[in-house]
């Protein structure tokens, strides 16, 4: 089934490539990638099993191969999460109607050229989750920070 929002990629040089653990899904991103943000919200924690690190890009700059293996789970009215149905790898978090997708930094090939810049939803942080890197911490979302 076709997934709305998935394009054949934008123009310009490939900025980054990545794939899920089993390799059934490959991604390619052109243009800029946002700095990495770590989310400590309860939904992310359960779905990833740990606080995830996400970069972000406009959908129009992202190419997905092996899309038939990409399964989406609507985790709230605002967003859905994309993972590989074969190996379970988390790849995407997509906010509805923004035309962009957050991409799990862990799936990208090194060197990523990315840096982690902040932690969000720190108010929901679990008891085992210690932040020791001295980066900015926001209690909730980062509405002002966009792709």
């Amino acid at each position: 089934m076709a997934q709305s929002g998935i394009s054949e990629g934008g123009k310009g040089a490939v900025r980054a490539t990545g794939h899920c653990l089993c390799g059934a899904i490959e991604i390619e991103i052109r243009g800029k990638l946002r700095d990495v943000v770590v989310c400590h919200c309860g939904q992310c924690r359960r779905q990833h099993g740990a606080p995830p690190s996400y970069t972000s890009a406009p959908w129009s700059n992202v190419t997905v191969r092996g899309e038939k293996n990409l399964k989406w789970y609507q985790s709230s009215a605002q967003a859905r999460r994309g993972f590989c149905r074969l190996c379970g790898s988390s790849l995407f978090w997509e906010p509805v109607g923004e035309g962009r997708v957050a991409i799990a930094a862990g799936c990208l090939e090194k060197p990523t050229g990315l840096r982690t810049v902040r932690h969000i939803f720190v108010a929901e942080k679990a008891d085992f989750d210690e932040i020791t890197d001295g980066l900015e911490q926001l209690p909730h979302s980062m509405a002002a920070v966009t792709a």
Partner: protein
Amino acid sequence: MSGRKTTGGCLCGGVRYEIDGPLAPPSACHCGQCRRYHGALGLYTLAPSERYKIKGDRNLAWFESSPGIRRGFCRVCGSKLFWERIGSGQLDVTMGSIDPPSGLKIVKHIHLEDAGDYYDPPSR
């Protein structure tokens, strides 16, 4: 600790578990497999398999990520739940799937040599 019971599950509720008794001190794995699979570090604790009760088994999918190692996730919502060395009699469970509070602290970081380049790994 002997009376302790831990509960947890996936984001959609399709898989739930209970673990009787104490849990091993959790670790944070920085290896490329964990980072690719979780989109995060692999944060796991551990208990003998026979102390687990798992509900919603039909929603639990297993992926053999290397010979003799398999990872369990919910096929409905993609939540990462288990890591198992097949035949070891033990089952690792993700810290993030545990109903809070876990009462646990991460005590060690492993596979730092394979850490991502988008963060500064802890020195310990």
